[in-house]
């Protein structure tokens, strides 16, 4: 009955309580502690967005790519950079513009006079974390070069296939499609992002802290990598082992079936999205220090996982997507 301790800790009264004890995951050890350090460090930079930060981490732990979408100036890039730095992975950044070429992303072969042959000069995609800033300002051609790399985790240049480093994450930011000068990502490419996060405006307290505080860029420079590539891979392995019971799978299936019912969404969730949903929920449960998935985990990650995949039929207003997903959750009783 080793579980009892951790569960009781988890349920100790008080709102917003979070326990970091993870006695139920045998190989946790130090990586978990370092993970929580990383989380705290990011929260120091991105103020008042604990939930979004946690979702980002869950996305990474689930091995998925992350899309951060919001109006300019709410801290998308700051969040992406803080994530990349805190995770301690090698990272590159591409600022997407409308004249960006695929070669600018994946790299080119250039003639080397010394050796007398062509030498491949890897592009920024050869990194463990790639920051793709304002991805929807590039033309579809440049977008698809990146998106192909995301799916295959390899790039092919001049007939030679080159594997990308392990782990490999893309953290992309984009402006809402309603803004001028954007090329909206098609659904098939949106689907490659495990999660889409919307940051939203900070609350009054966070904004005040922002006004009082030092320059974010200075703070950013002082960030340490709290984790290593090995840690991330170990954490991903742990996430895959989180237990999902039959009852929970029933609930996931009921939710997904509801999205496929005609009337609310243009199209329901695909089987791939369903797998992603469960994976993200596992990562969320792991971040909560639990060895098994609860319906609450599904509900917490559903807006991030499904928000960019479900198009409401009668979408009116800014928050239509968000509202229709909360309505969807409220409609499906627990099995």
């Amino acid at each position, binding site marked *: *009955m*080793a*579980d*009892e301790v951790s*569960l*009781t800790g*988890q*349920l*100790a*009264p*008080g*709102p917003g*309580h979070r326990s970091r004890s993870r006695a139920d995951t045998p190989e946790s050890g130090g990586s978990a502690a370092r993970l929580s350090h990383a989380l705290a460090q990011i929260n120091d930079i991105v103020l008042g967005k604990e939930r979004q930060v946690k979702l980002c981490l869950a996305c990474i732990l689930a091995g998925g790519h992350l899309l951060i979408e919001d109006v300019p100036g709410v801290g998308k890039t700051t969040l992406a950079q803080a994530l990349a730095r805190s995770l301690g992975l090698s990272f590159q950044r591409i600022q997407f513009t409308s004249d960006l070429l695929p070669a600018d992303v994946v790299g080119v072969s250039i003639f080397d006079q010394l050796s007398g042959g062509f030498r491949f000069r890897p592009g920024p995609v050869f990194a463990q974390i790639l920051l793709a800033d304002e991805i929807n300002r590039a033309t579809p051609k440049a977008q698809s070069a990146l998106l192909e790399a995301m799916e295959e985790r390899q790039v092919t240049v001049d007939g030679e296939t080159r594997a990308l480093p392990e782990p490999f994450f893309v953290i992309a930011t984009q402006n809402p499609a309603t803004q001028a000068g954007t090329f909206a990502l098609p659904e098939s490419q949106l689907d490659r992002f495990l999660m889409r996060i919307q940051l939203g405006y900070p609350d009054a307290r966070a904004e005040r802290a922002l006004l009082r505080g030092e320059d974010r860029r200075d703070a950013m420079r002082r960030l340490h990598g709290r984790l290593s590539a090995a840690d991330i891979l170990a954490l991903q392995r742990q996430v895959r082992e989180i*237990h999902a*019971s039959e*009852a*929970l799978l029933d609930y996931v299936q009921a939710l997904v079936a509801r999205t496929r019912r005609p009337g609310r969404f243009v199209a329901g969730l695909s089987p791939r999205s369903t797998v992603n949903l469960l994976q993200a929920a596992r990562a969320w449960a792991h971040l909560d220090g639990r*060895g*098994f*998935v*609860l*319906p*609450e985990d599904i*509900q917490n990650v559903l807006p991030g996982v499904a928000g960019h995949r479900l198009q409401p039929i009668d979408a009116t207003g800014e928050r239509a997507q968000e509202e229709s997903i909360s309505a969807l*959750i*409220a*409609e*499906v*009783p*627990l*099995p």
Partner: protein
Amino acid sequence: MSSAATLRTGAVYSLLGAMAALIVPHTPRLPDWLMLTVLAFLLWQSLATALRWKPLSRWLLAGMSVAATAAVVISFGPVPDREGSVVLLVLMAGLKCLELRSVRDAHVATLLGHFLIVTHFLYSQTALLAAFLALILLWLVATGVAFQDRNRTLPPVRILRTAAVIAGSALPLAALLFLLFPRVQGPLFGDAATPGRATTGLGDAMSPGDIVDLGLSDEVAFRVDFDAVGVGAHEMYWRGPVLWDFDGRTWRAGRRANPPATVRAGRRETGYRVTLEPHGRRWMFALDVPAAAPAGAVLGADLLLRAQHPIRTRTRYVVRSLLDYRVGLEESEHVLRRALRLPPDANPRTVALGTLLRTRSGDGHGVLAEVLSMFRQQPFHYTLAPPALGRDSVDEFLFDTRRGFCEHYASAFAVIMRAAGVPARIVTGYQGGEYNNVGNYLVVRQSHAHAWVEVWLPDQGWRRVDPTAAVAPGRVETGSALPWRDQDASRARDTGGWPSWIDARQVLDHLTRSWNDWVLDYSAERQRGLLRYVGLSDAGWPRLAALLAAAVAPAVAALAALRLRHRPALRADRVDRAYARFCSKLERVGCARRPHEGPYDFARRIAMTRPALSVPVDQITLAYVGLRYAHAAPVSAAGLEALVRAFAPRRVLRQSGARY
């Protein structure tokens, strides 16, 4: 925990509002103390909800209900009549509104509201009332839905929609019950009118000022469907009681029946169907003069149709009337003598005038022409607000005031005629009517009540003379708006698309008529007719009951099947059953789990709202989650069951001092 904590506040206000809307219309019928008491209850409860007062103690409420019952028994006897029962129901509904502690109380109060709806039909059954009560019913059902929505997540539109679906699903069943439920002879809900309540309408006596009361009443007297058009406005005299005996002020029908008059029919006649509203007397109105009596009635001496019993329910009959006729050419001597009788010392000036006219113009025709021209030329005014008249009412009217309406003119005219030796009698009834273009029928209202005179001339028999028409021709001409009048037809054409003559009043009256026809007057007889039509000839009540059961059972089964299909999957194992029991225990102390709420979220919410419960709730939640979602559990299923069994949230809360 105050009532506001368990019940949706908006729903409480909605319930109180619906109750007020149901009770206020009873004001004219029920005692004032009752109204004030119950409205005070409702007001108190709304204040208590708004200000979160403590609910009244159960002892106080119990005492109040005993007192209320005692008051009703003392006032209305141990077996209360209709009014007593309604008073008791209204009181108890008001008291229940004071006791809104749980959702269950709220549902009981809402149900009492449904019974209050029925009480209105004991007094009146008009279409408007039914529509109003249907709205209230929807309101009540919506209130019930709002109470049932324990997590207060449904927006009002969804609540209304759910209520409409619930009420709508009951409609087919209601229609079946309406059509097939065995009926007693008589109208729906029995006699709506209180026995002994005065019904408006013409009486068998007439003194100055009688008809003006009717003249201001908009109530419908009867409605007429003609077989064919062609009755002119000047022919629309609906014959009622004939008045013979005059005592100087009041005309009476008199007890003595005359021998039947002979009728010689001319060429023109018309057929029509009358739907007579109950008026408590025996006579039935028909166009002057009816050719024969319809079934169940007799054609009396004064050519008045009489039913066998006083008309207390809406009655339909088909009549044919003669438009060209000669009546009473061979009238007996003593009848004519009766039609000449005048009280000896009343109205001397009028009698003198009559005698003078007689000597001046010789025969009846001359007198008639002279008197009519007098009315036409001298300054007589038609008004519904005449000055009061004294003892010699006819003298005062003819020579002093000269202001009056039909009964003054008819009375004065008849007195002059009798004084001049021309037999005369007064006929009361209705003149004209209002044509309803929407339903193509004629509405005759109490405001169409009229009195005219019949004089007897040797070569013509009884001849109708309307002195009012001589003074105010408009009263007769515009008394009705007939569709076959040319200007009406052209007006309808001019406006194009939306005929100007469709006004709201006509539409409303047409609705009322259809409601009367199809709903209120669906009698046992018409039920038999309907069943014969579908091939069931002998429909006694046992057979009807069987038919009803056969028809209703599939409907209920279909509804039940629908309900079952939408039910969440049956609780399969004991872990789930135990957790469900745990949730329902919490629900009883006002913490309902939302259907989609996960166990941890639920436990966390309870820890915030009811900290006293957090230890046992956490323990049970851990056990449940362990069994249900984790690969290892702290306790077995039996352990969970034991934990749930021992869980007593009410007691824990009471011990911790939390108010609930």
